């Protein structure tokens, strides 16, 4: 194999069998937004807007750097946004404007 062949045969999610360190038996209680994100994923699946495999594939499409640096639910919500753009359901502009509105709302009301 050439030295780039492993990039073709191994996508970022495909890590079964790779060398890795000791298992750290970590866990954490989900933050409120993480739990909402999980519920959002389920509801998107129920409505056949984004299914589990599309989600997994969407995370993989973030590329190795984002897959490596973002946390689990950060990867999910960014993948959902990208998939929704691609499906023409949302646009980047709509998201940007909505996030501005959310920030203003928070500043105006002390965050409720």
């Amino acid at each position, binding site marked *: 194999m050439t030295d780039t062949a492993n990039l073709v045969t191994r996508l970022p999610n495909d890590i079964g069998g790779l060398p890795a360190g*000791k298992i750290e*038996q*970590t866990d*954490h209680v989900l933050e409120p937004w993480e739990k909402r994100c999980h519920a959002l994923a389920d509801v998107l699946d129920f409505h056949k807007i984004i299914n589990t495999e599309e989600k997994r594939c969407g995370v993989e499409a973030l590329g190795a750097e984002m897959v490596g640096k973002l946390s689990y639910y950060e990867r999910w*919500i960014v993948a959902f946004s990208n998939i929704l753009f691609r499906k023409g359901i949302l646009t980047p502009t709509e998201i940007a404007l909505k996030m501005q509105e959310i920030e203003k709302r928070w500043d105006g009301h002390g965050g409720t």
Partner: protein
Amino acid sequence: MSGSHDHDHAHDHHTHPHAEVGATGRPGYYDMLETAVRELLIEKKYFSAGEIRRQIEVLDSRTPALGAKVVAKAWTDPDFKARLLANGRAACEELGISFYDDTQLIVLENTDAVHNLIVCTLCSCYPRPVLGLPPDWYKAKPYRARAVTEPRAVLAEFGTIIPDAVEVRVHDSTAMVRYLVLPMRPKGTDGFTEEQLAALVTRDAMIGVIPANEPEGARA
């Protein structure tokens, strides 16, 4: 968490700062992104806010106690166990455990000859309807990468030593097919009620990384 040599992917450990959250309660970037996506989809009538709230309640209702109830029932009712091994989902539904997704469930029986272990190498597929959400280590690289090629070493890190004569089978979950391990019933539990038995069954035993707990006072 050491993270000394296992790459700089602090995947699920939340080492990256959420400074805004702690200090002022101001939502962070991803928190706002989630809110934006959800609110826009609700405005566009793809679903309602109530559906999200109800699903959060469903998620909160799913804990390993449900899986433990299934295991204890299988230990005490051979007919149920046969149905459970034939069709995991249908047998769980018999006990009132609804599957809120389209996944199938395959239940894997540990015996004196075979020890089963579940993993999802590609992501984090897990029998959520019966166990709730997976622990972070199940979703992180070391477990996903190593479980399929060196399961005995992985098990040893959980303190589980499987004799060489016992076959270890690793099951890689998919989006549609999930697994649940039916651990061996511990010795010294004759005459135990289902409730007493269920108390011995942990999440990790149903993932397959440890056996079910021995009853208190039992000799190891």
